[in-house]
């Protein structure tokens, strides 16, 4: 499987993990003040940031920068 396919699968796993149906009615508190459902989603936000950091590390479009710099610039379509 190529990198893009793997990233798409992990992204879809994230979408499923977002539903966390197992926490839906759990009112336990983590650290004495944070409901489990909220704590889970706080960790989810950190995991999402980590996921995108890894995606950028392994699948960064390095050629895009060079392509962007090589165009006709202001001559075509943009503000005159």
């Amino acid at each position, binding site marked *: 499987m190529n990198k893009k396919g793997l990233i798409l699968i992990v*992204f879809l796993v*994230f*979408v499923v993990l*977002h*539903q*966390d*149906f197992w*926490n*839906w*009615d*759990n*009112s336990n*508190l983590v650290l*004495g*003040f*944070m*409901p489990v*459902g*909220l704590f889970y*989603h*706080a960790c*989810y*936000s*950190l995991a*999402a*940031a980590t*996921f*995108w*950091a890894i*995606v*950028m590390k392994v699948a960064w*479009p390095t050629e*895009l*920068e060079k*392509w*962007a*710099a*090589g*165009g*006709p*610039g*202001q*001559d*075509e*379509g*943009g*503000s*005159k």
Partner: protein
Amino acid sequence: MTTVVVILIYLGVLLTLALFSKTLFRGTSADYFVASHSIGPFMLLMSVFGTTMTAFALVGSTGEAFERGIGTYGLMASSSGLIHAACFLLIGIKLWAIGKRYGYVTQIQYFRARFDSKGIGYLLFPILVLLVVPYLLIGIIGTAKTIYGVTVKKVTPDGITPGAFPEFFESTNGAVPAWLSGLIISLVVLTYIFAGGSRATAWANTFQTVFFMVMGVFVVYLVSDALGGANAAMEKAKDSHKVRTLSSDGHVGVSTLTFASYMFIPLSVGMFPHLFQHWLTAKSANTFKLTVVAHPIFIAIVWIPCVLLGTWATGMPSMEGTKSAVVLAKMVSILIENPIITGLVTASILAAIMSSLDSQFLCLGTMFTNDIVLFGSKKEYTDKQILFIARGFIVGIVALVYFLALLLINKNVFDLAIWSFSGFAALTPLVIAALYWKRATLIGAYSCIIAVFISWITFYAMSGFGGEFTVFGGIVPAAVMWFIGAAAMIIGSLVSQPPSEKTLAKFF
């Protein structure tokens, strides 16, 4: 009075900083519209984050948590962390590269070139404007109501607190009237956009975003202290608000279908015209890296404290029956009782509002100038003339939105916000197909825009013209509209001639 002075000092500091950025202004239209592609990673992060976070991030999230419970965070925030970052990475960076290569400063310039059509711009332009305007109205009306709330006469168990200016504003019991607060905020934002365009906007947004993030955390600390600590505050909170299960009356918690389908709404950032313009300000593709990674974390930093505040409020007898829009303000006034802190909290709410307003005003001015006046014009305009036109449009738009806000001041336009987001979200198949699908054609693009527009109007009418509305037992309309838009894009493209080789060579 002290509260108002604190707010005015904040506005003064903001204006000074934003006008300082004018010293960096290069005097060209490219600098005015997209800061000459020179904004670095930190300022891009702060300006993009500040633009996507409206007053709802502070006031609305607290109120929603007070009404629905902790499910608010998963519903609106953690999903946004995942989806927004995906949009920045997959849509933002690619559009930045295309915009930089071909000199585009608006989305419509790109779509016209990608689909080789003038007409698509004339179709898309009014729809984008129609979806941005409610967003602007919410900002001005939100400002007016926030300042009115902190300066109006209050009757509490301890006695009567007079309004801030009883001698000046008798008709409002001493509160600063909506026309004045709306006017001051409009003029502050207009002044720095007029002077420095997108560069001033980036500087102002950076300052405002830092300010409202710090204030959010600070308020939670003060409130938890007043409630005897975070543990004690959460102990007292209602159990129904510590879970996501939908209550029997449907007022607390979230339905599972709504929770799942709500993930489509954050896709709206992929089609926001003001975010397109912010992306274009980036110095390089690498500049986006910090924005992609830090955005989900920043959402957590702003939203978790507010959701905690709203949940704690459910355990306070004095908050019983409070309207969601005033939960934050009421908690601060009851528990902190310090006019300077009230002023700082109010200023932070204004910061969140203005950091979105400025980008939207600038983007509408940019679109009118480039997509309507300059497009197809046979006359050659100098850079000075282009700047003059853009500034003129911005003044006109600010004035129009200000008067429209005053006309609608007593209407519940806040309900329009979710419809504005849903419309932009439903249009994302257009930009995704344009960027990644070579077979996407003009007919497909027209089909997508028209299908989304018709379905949007239909659902909006079915909802009774605004407010919360779901279909099929809990699915949000944005999800259904997204699939309708995607299907129309695919079918329309497949039944029409593929794009020309020249177009494909230009963009792929």
